[in-house]
Every structure is written in C-alpha cells, then in structure tokens.
C-alpha cells in the first residue's frame, strides 16, 4: 500500500493496479500517488487482480489487457470476471492496442464505471488522472480511437445526416465527456453544446436526458447496435 492520504479532509480514491511489467506498474503507481490517489494494491496477473479487488474493495482498478500467462487478453477477462464478483466495481482497462471488439465486450459487462484507453494516454498525466477519477465515480470513458471505430462500423443514414460539428460533439459524448468538457475542447459556450446535443439526439431518435452518464449509454447503445 502506497500513497497515504495527503489531506485528511476528503478521503482519497483507492486504486488497485494490475500490470505485469514492473517498470510500468511503478510508473503508474507513482503517477497516481502524485495526483493524490491511494494505491491499495499492485498485482501482476489476473487471479491477483480478482483476489485484490475482493479483499480491498477499491474505488477503481487500473488493468492492463496483456498479462501472463497467455499474454493475450488475460487482463480483459480478469477485469470482466472481477466486475462479476464485485458488483459496482469501476475498471479502467489500458491496452497497447484498442480494438472496438474488446471495448464492446467490456461495455457488455455493465456500462457504468468502465474505461478503455490506449496505454499511450497515460503520458498525458492530467487527462489520465481525470479519466481514472471519472471512471471511479461511475462514468464511462472510451478512447477516441474506439469511438472512431464504433462510428466507422455504424455507417447509416442517420449518422450521415449529422453536421461535421455535430459528429464531433457525438464523438466527444461517446468518449464520456460532459457538456462543460466538450465546450472547453471545442471553444464554444455550454449553451451551444446543449443545442448541438439536442439536435443530435433528435436526428438519431434517442430520448433526451439531462444526466451525462445516461447520455453516454444512449449513444453507445446506438453505435453498438
């Protein structure tokens, strides 16, 4: 256990890290501890992850897809299994490659508190820490590449009817961004984003919702269909 709470006023997020490469595990731990999180366990394989989350009940588990013994998708399988055994467990899966197929498998295990990011994204420390916090709080965070693949796979007339700006907004919704975050990225006002969102949901025939989280799910379900 590393990274004792720095300020005692609010209890820090408790994290389990599952990553077989010692170098990367240390790096991840250092980065999260620096950001004020509390790393309760570090493990190097699937069974280790499952027993660690059962023992520590962390707020979020950060899991590498490729782990021993098969070095294929052990981590993904372990993450899905861990979510089955510990309900409401939030999991952020990291991978050297993001594949739409893995993303959808992960979403099928329950689409709340799920993240799926390219490992490279760790390099943008503040964004990565935000993603970890978002997933821990029950949000869905998808790598832009996965979203691109989802969008590419679902080519239909309704999607084609969206303006380029609306498509941009749709991608950002699917990545799990809030209206405020979208407004910041696109350099527009929150009001403008709201207008786009309304128009997108109208064109795709989805039910309007105020809740950011339910909104992500609606979009992902639409793309995934």
């Amino acid at each position: 256990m590393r990274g004792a709470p720095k300020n005692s006023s609010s209890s820090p997020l408790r994290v389990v890290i599952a990553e077989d490469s010692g170098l990367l595990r240390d790096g991840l731990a250092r980065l999260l501890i620096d950001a004020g999180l509390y790393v309760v366990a570090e493990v190097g394989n699937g069974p280790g992850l499952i027993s660690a989350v059962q023992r520590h009940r962390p707020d979020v588990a950060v899991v590498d897809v490729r782990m021993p013994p098969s070095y294929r998708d052990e981590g993904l399988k372990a993450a899905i299994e861990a979510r089955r055994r510990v309900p409401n467990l939030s999991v952020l899966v990291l991978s050297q490659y993001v594949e739409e197929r893995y993303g959808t498998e992960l979403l099928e295990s329950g689409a709340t508190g799920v993240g799926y990011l390219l490992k490279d994204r760790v390099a943008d420390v503040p964004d990565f820490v935000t993603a970890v916090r978002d997933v821990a709080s029950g949000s869905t965070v998808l790598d832009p590449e996965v979203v691109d693949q989802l969008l590419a796979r679902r080519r239909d007339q309704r999607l084609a009817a969206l303006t380029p700006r609306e498509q941009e907004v749709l991608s950002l919704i699917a990545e799990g961004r809030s209206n405020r975050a979208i407004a910041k990225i696109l350099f527009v006002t929150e009001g403008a984003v709201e207008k786009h969102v309304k128009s997108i949901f109208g064109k795709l025939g989805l039910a309007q919702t105020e809740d950011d989280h339910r909104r992500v799910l609606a979009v992902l379900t639409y793309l995934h269909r």
Partner: protein
Amino acid sequence: MSESVTSGPNAKPRRGAVGPARSPFFAGLGASVGFLLPNLPLGIFWFAALVVLILLGILLAVAWLVVMAVTLAMLWLIRKPNWHMLIRGPTSIFAPAMSLCIRGAQAERRRVARFLGEAAPSAYRQLPQGSLFARASTRVKDLATWRDLAYLLLLLPVGAAEFALVIGAFALPLVTIILPTWLFVAFPEGVPLGQGVRIDTPLEALIIAIITLPVSALVGYLLVVGMSKAHAALGQTLLWPSKRARLARRVEELTESRSRAVEAAIVERRRIERDLHDGAQQRLVSLAIGLGLAREKIATDPQTARELIEEAHGEVKRTLAEIRDLVRGIHPTVLSDRGLDAAISALAVRCPVPVEVNVELDGRPPEAAETTAYFVVAEALANVAKHSEASEAQVFVRREYKPQDRLVVEVVDDGKGGADFEAGTGLTGLTDRLAALDGHLFVKSPTGGPTQVHAELPLGALHGTA
C-alpha cells in the same frame, strides 16, 4: 477491352464437380452415348492424320540422314563437321506430328475431364525457354507425349468397338420388340424353342417379348454406361499425368514455393528492420539528444529546458504510435485473441472506404491459414483504399469442404479496376505467402472495374491450433 490478371496454375477458381454419377437415368445414358459415339470418327481422324504425318516424317528423316551423312562425310575432308545436325534434322521433321499429337491429346483430355466433371490436368513437363529444338527435345523425352500418341492411335480400334457395341446395345431392346412379328412372318408354323417347347400363338410371343424387354433394355443400358466409364478410365490411365510425373511436379512446386516462402520471410524481415531503423530508432536518438540538452539547461535556462521536455514528450508519443502500427503490421493481437471476424472487422473500420464484412466460419481455422487469410484481406483493402477509387467494398470469408477442405477469401470492390501484378509488390508478396501454404491467388481486375481478389487456402494438411 478487358484485361484480367490471374495467377496460380488454374486460371479459374474451382467449382463443385458435376459428374455423370449424379445424373438421372436418361441423362446418364445420354452423356455416355454422347461421350462414346464421337470416339470412332475422332479415332479415324487422329489415326489417319498421325499415321500420315509420321510416315511422311520417317521418309523425310531417312532422306535427311542420307543426304546429311554424305554431305558431312564430304565436309569432313575439309574441316571437323557438326554431327549434332544429324539429330536436329529429324527432331524438327517430327515436330508437326508431335505438335498435332499434343493438340489432339489436349482436346481429348478436356473431353474426358468434362465427362468426369473435373478439371483437365496438365500432364507435361515444363518447356524450357529457347529454340524450337530445345522445346521439341523436352517433348520427346517427356513420357507424357508418348502416352498421348498411344491413346490417339488406340482411339481408332477402341472407338470402332465402342461404336459397334453402342449400336448393339440400342438394337437389343429394339430387336426384342419386333422379334414376335418377325418370327411369325418367318415361321408361320410357330418357333421351336427346343426340348419340345414352341411359341405358336401371337399371345405367347407377345408375353415373351414383354418379359425380355426390360432385361434387354437393362443390359443395353449397363453396357453403354459401363463402357463410357471404362473409356474414361482408359483416358485417365494414358492422358492423366502418371504418379511419377505427379510426384515430380509436386516436388518442383514445393521446392519453388519453399524458396519463395523463405524469400518472402527475408523481404519481410528487411522491411521491419528498415521501418524500425528509419522510424523508432531515429526518434529515440533525437529524444536522447533533446533530453540531454534539457538536462544541461535545467539549472541555467529552465524555460528552454521546459520547452525541450515538452518536445521530447510529444516525440515519445509519436514513437509509441509508430511502433504500435509496425507491430500490428507484423501480427495483430486481435487476430490471435478473437479470430478472423474480429480482426477483419478491425481492418474494415480503419479502411477509408466503407467495407461490408461477411465471415462465415464455425470454429477457428489453423493459425497459419488464419494469418495468411488476414494478410490477404489487409493487402486487398489497402489496395482498395489506395488505388481503386471504389465507393464500397465487400469481404467474404468462408470454409468450403468440396472438392477439398479449404478457406476461401474474397475481396470485391466497385472501383476502376486495372490492378497490376507487376506494378506493386503487394500482390506478388501475397502470392508467395499463399504458395507457402499451397494456396492460390486469383485477381480479376478488368480496366473499368470491378476488382475481385479471390484466395484459396487448402486446410487438409494444416494442423489446427485453436
């Protein structure tokens, strides 16, 4: 004008065989008769043509030998003569007979193959490049040529016998029908069948005719069908490549495909080396320089150091992306994890042209076949994106069990066509990869489109892993 590019020993993908065995009674009879009756006229033609050409050839050759021997003997008095001329002459003299013989045998091979419902095999040794003499001498040394000649000469007596028997087979039931009438015209007193039994009323004659008709019809039918099968067997014995020739050819193919596979592996390794050297390695060097500079500056000029670190950070991310693409090109993880459907879907979504993916497989094919199939699709889709100007493409992957267990991969687009084997190394590389597994690539790409890439991978000899 349409231009099409193909590769592999057969120009067309094989379709399922349609043999006489599956045909109904009369269709089978018709096919057999249609196969047998032409044997006599064809036999007469080939026999006459070949015998005339060969006899003429013998006369000419004898004349040639005499004239040349005398000439050379006389020349010998002046300088050393070239004795090879003696052999070259007759070979050229018999070339027309040989060429005709091979043409005839090819036609017969196609006819027998059509009757059997299979593809006509190629029976000959490969011809060398070079002079007429070199090619002719390969033909002479090839046992297949002599077997062809034997078949064509045999076609006359065999064809005649078959012709007679077919006529007989049809006459048999006919005779059975008219026999009673004829008997009463010839024997008004009744026909003695021997041992005191006589047919003396029209009713008796009719009854006997009715009883014997099915028997004679069946005998005739079996005779014709059996004979057609026997003739096809004769054709296969003489016209089809001998076991020895088949094995020799197989060894040639395997030797060639092995060296191509080795070649392909070397080319691939060189490409990876080049990509790593020009890409990731250079980036890492510049990264090391940038970070080294930053370390020097950090005390004296923290602002510059900070910028240098920013740059280095960006450089690392670009290197990561580059290595990721490179590794994916060597072997995509999703293929080993989830199989062809997932891996091809991933290719499809990365393709700028909309791609429809249809993978119909129960279970996972052997890994070697899976990987090769994946790269066929990857290369074909890369070509679709780069050259075709297509607005959409379709990928089909399925397993077919007849005539042999194989994996079939098809990539079709609606682009402008004109794909060229010579222009890009991509397609040739694929042919090599496929050849290593005994597979074949067929590319149909007429100018104006559409382009159709069709690959077949036999699975019989591969061991499943998943």
